[in-house]
């Protein structure tokens, strides 16, 4: 800082000794937040929305009080007024704010301002944090704009604080979730044309999600009881949303991190943490609430609370991890080599590279199986219908199979062209998977046309998870064909594992010296 500060010491005397409190406060905040809030206050988009929001609320109050006059005191108008105030708010926080967040991140990327930012002391994570914090500030601003109106509503008949709080709290979290989704979408568009396409999709999703707010008009809504379990429910919903925000934020960070840096570890660590949180919560729940063993509620609970989130995490993170470049970049490898001996091997599944990603997926699948066994014996008590067990078995087999295929494709394509882009690998993988899933259906449909007869499920349809899963839920038990399908799935996953062993071995060797297979590929590029 030497020259810039010393040469202008004369100018400094004109500034007061201690900067104003607001400035000192702003100093501590994320620079992006400060910049974006300043920009938002000058942008027509946000200020206009805020004005419209307040205007709409005034209009509702004015028309309402003029129309109903003193009747307001006697009839249950509370819910109606609340809904009429809340819907403009939802439009603002569910559509406008996420879309502004999307736009600001997108422009940052497409205008190359992002690159300039990333060589300051701000890293990708702080940039994304700044964007998210800005979104939250705007949400809070919108909330504070309607606070007086809500206060007014609370005086009306029929208004109850529990449902109101319920929906308002969820609104904040859900809107933050939508903003983080918008951030992820903004990292997908690589040019202005794609941008139009993604904008449309995003708007559709935002409108769809915001339309849930219409359930406010359902009569049942205002009868939500003020009990312990309501707040437990609220708490769990918020926790899930926080988890989603966390994961999406990490995905955004990974997407905007330079390819030469470590994109993988953040997402994988957050994924592991979320899984542990999900498993832990379920386990805790089982300790404190003795659910009837083998009942339908228990198994539903296990499926919704344990299996679905885990499956979601594994699918999302596995898809990205297994399609990565096999080798670490030189920068990451050197950083890993600086880690103390044992630590780098412990960190193995979380380090970048498709083979390590594959190990990561397998590890979590097996851990999950172990947890299931620990919490409830899946082969006995927890599901009288056995459907869920077979579901879980098939799903695990498919997860193993697909992660294996993705890893193999990634390695094969990269062996031919080390600079092959991840998008190409992912597209190839998706094509292979969807083709193999559709093919049996096509064949069966053709045969049925020709023979004029209905063919049921056969094990030859194993490559279509859709058909297999449908068969499991229809048949309940394990038909002979399903047994064969499970065996075929198991064997092919094993074969893929064996095929990927080479890659895993390479990934271990890579971590031992600077001259690992990674540098070999780079030399290969020269040839």
């Amino acid at each position, binding site marked *: *800082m*030497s*020259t*810039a*500060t010393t*040469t*202008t*010491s004369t*100018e*400094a005397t004109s*500034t007061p000794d201690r*900067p104003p409190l607001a*400035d*000192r406060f702003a*100093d501590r905040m994320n*620079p*992006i937040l*400060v*910049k974006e809030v*300043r*920009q938002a206050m*000058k*942008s027509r988009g946000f200020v206009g929305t805020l004005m419209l929001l307040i205007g709409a609320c005034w209009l509702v109050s004015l028309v309402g009080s003029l129309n109903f006059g003193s009747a307001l005191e006697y009839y249950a108008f509370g819910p109606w007024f609340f809904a009429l105030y809340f819907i403009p708010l939802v439009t603002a926080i569910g559509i406008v704010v996420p879309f502004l967040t999307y736009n600001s991140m997108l*422009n940052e990327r*497409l*205008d*190359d*301002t992002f*690159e*300039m*930012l*990333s*060589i*300051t*002391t*701000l890293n990708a994570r702080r940039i994304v944090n700044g964007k998210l914090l800005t979104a939250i500030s705007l949400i809070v601003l919108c909330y504070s704009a309607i606070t007086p109106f809500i206060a007014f509503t609370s005086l009306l008949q029929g208004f109850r604080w529990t449902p109101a709080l319920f929906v308002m709290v969820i609104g904040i979290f859900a809107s933050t979730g939508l903003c983080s989704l918008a951030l992820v979408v903004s990292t997908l568009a690589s040019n202005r044309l794609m941008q139009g396409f993604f904008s449309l999709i995003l708007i559709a999703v935002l409108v769809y999600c915001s339309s849930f707010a219409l359930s406010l008009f359902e009569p049942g809504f205002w009868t939500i009881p003020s009990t312990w379990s309501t707040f437990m429910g609220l708490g769990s919903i918020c926790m899930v949303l926080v988890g989603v925000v966390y994961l999406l934020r990490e995905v955004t960070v990974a997407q905007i991190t*330079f390819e*030469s*840096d470590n994109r993988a570890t953040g997402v994988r660590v957050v994924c592991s943490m979320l899984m542990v949180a999900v498993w832990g919560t379920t386990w805790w729940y089982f300790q404190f609430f003795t659910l009837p063993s083998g009942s339908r509620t228990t198994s539903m609970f296990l499926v919704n609370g344990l299996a679905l989130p885990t499956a979601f995490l594994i699918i999302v993170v596995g898809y990205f991890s297994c399609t990565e470049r096999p080798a670490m*970049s*030189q*920068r990451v490898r*050197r*950083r890993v080599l600086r880690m103390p001996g044992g630590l780098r091997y412990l960190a193995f599944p979380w380090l970048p590279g498709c083979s390590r990603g594959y190990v990561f997926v397998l590890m979590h699948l097996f851990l999950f199986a172990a947890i299931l066994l620990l919490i409830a014996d899946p082969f006995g008590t927890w599901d009288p219908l056995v459907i869920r067990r077979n579901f879980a078995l098939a799903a695990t087999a498919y997860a193993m199979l697909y992660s294996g295929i993705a890893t193999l494709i990634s390695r094969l394509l990269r062996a031919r*062209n080390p*600079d092959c882009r991840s998008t190409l690998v992912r597209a190839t993988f998706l094509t292979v998977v969807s083709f193999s899933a559709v093919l049996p259906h096509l064949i069966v449909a053709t045969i049925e046309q020709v023979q004029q007869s209905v063919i049921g499920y056969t094990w030859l349809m194993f490559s279509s998870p859709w058909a297999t899963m449908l068969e499991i839920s229809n048949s309940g038990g394990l038909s002979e064909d399903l047994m064969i399908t499970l065996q075929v799935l198991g064997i092919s996953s094993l074969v893929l594992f064996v095929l990927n062993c080479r890659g895993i071995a390479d990934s271990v060797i890579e971590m031992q010296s600077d001259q690992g297979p990674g540098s070999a590929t*780079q030399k290969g*590029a*020269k040839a």
Partner: protein
Amino acid sequence: MNETVPVELITATSELVPLPAPSRQVLAVRHLSRYFGDLHAVDDVSFDAAEGQVVGFIGPNGAGKTTTMRIIATLDVPNHGDAIVCGNSVIDYPDRVRRHIGYMPDSFGKYSNMNVEDYLDFYARAYGLKGRDRQRAVNHVLAFTELRKLQYKSIKALSKGMSQRLGLGRTLIHDPQLLILDEPAAGLDPRARVELRELVHLLARELNKTVLISSHILTELGEICDSVVIIEAGKVLVSGDVDEIHRQKRASRVEGDLHEVLLRTVSGFDQAQHETLHKWLLEQPFVTACQMSGDCFRLEFTGNEQQQAELLKRLIEHEFPIIEFHGKTQTLEDAFMSITRGITQ
């Protein structure tokens, strides 16, 4: 800050930032290579830059200038080789390198709803400057780039010249040691170019910054650069002192190389005498053509320096009234044209 750093022992690790020493090395590029598939955008490039030096980075379109600069600015990673900025490898310690560099790309996006001061303030924050330090840095940059008058102007509304100034200002906000300017003069009018050149000169001479500057405006670089690196198709063709390159170029001239020699006689030398001289010149060895206009002769000469001197000696011996005799001095532009071969990739 530099003044207050206590003298400490330097151990022989690349992690330590070396102590400021007179004209210490700021940038060392070592065997840098970057491939895009089969394309060798940068191929084994090496050069150095010391404190207070302006290094011109010259090459035709697609030579790999931007790619090299992006690697030094930690925006990209080389396939081979390394670049060391103030003792830190761009591969191993990008975060440390970023504190020492200011990078101005050939084009950069601008935020909407933001004025000049807010823009600089934002970047100062992004570099972690707080409170009074930040205000000082912003004021200093506003003063240095003479943007004070436009302080409250929206950055979208700035002219090209002014936004280049702002871009330069932004790279200076955290007082980096090494400035990397990618074609800063592109699209500027002559006056703005001269002003930019003066700013760069000031940065190097007064503030002792190292400036790596790429440009197509070769003649301009010749005046402000202490050394140049000429690059084509990813390879360094020549690097070193500007004068040194000229000297090398002249000395390396061999028989058969065509160049021009200009010759002038005293005015009042009559037409017949001119004809005689013209004829005589054409008979001399190594002269392949001779154009006459007034009392000026333009020779195409294929000999080396020694043979050129002998021609002059003979002219004098024949008592031709010569008042001027010189090989056309090479500009950087000529050097560039004769060094590069117009390879495109």
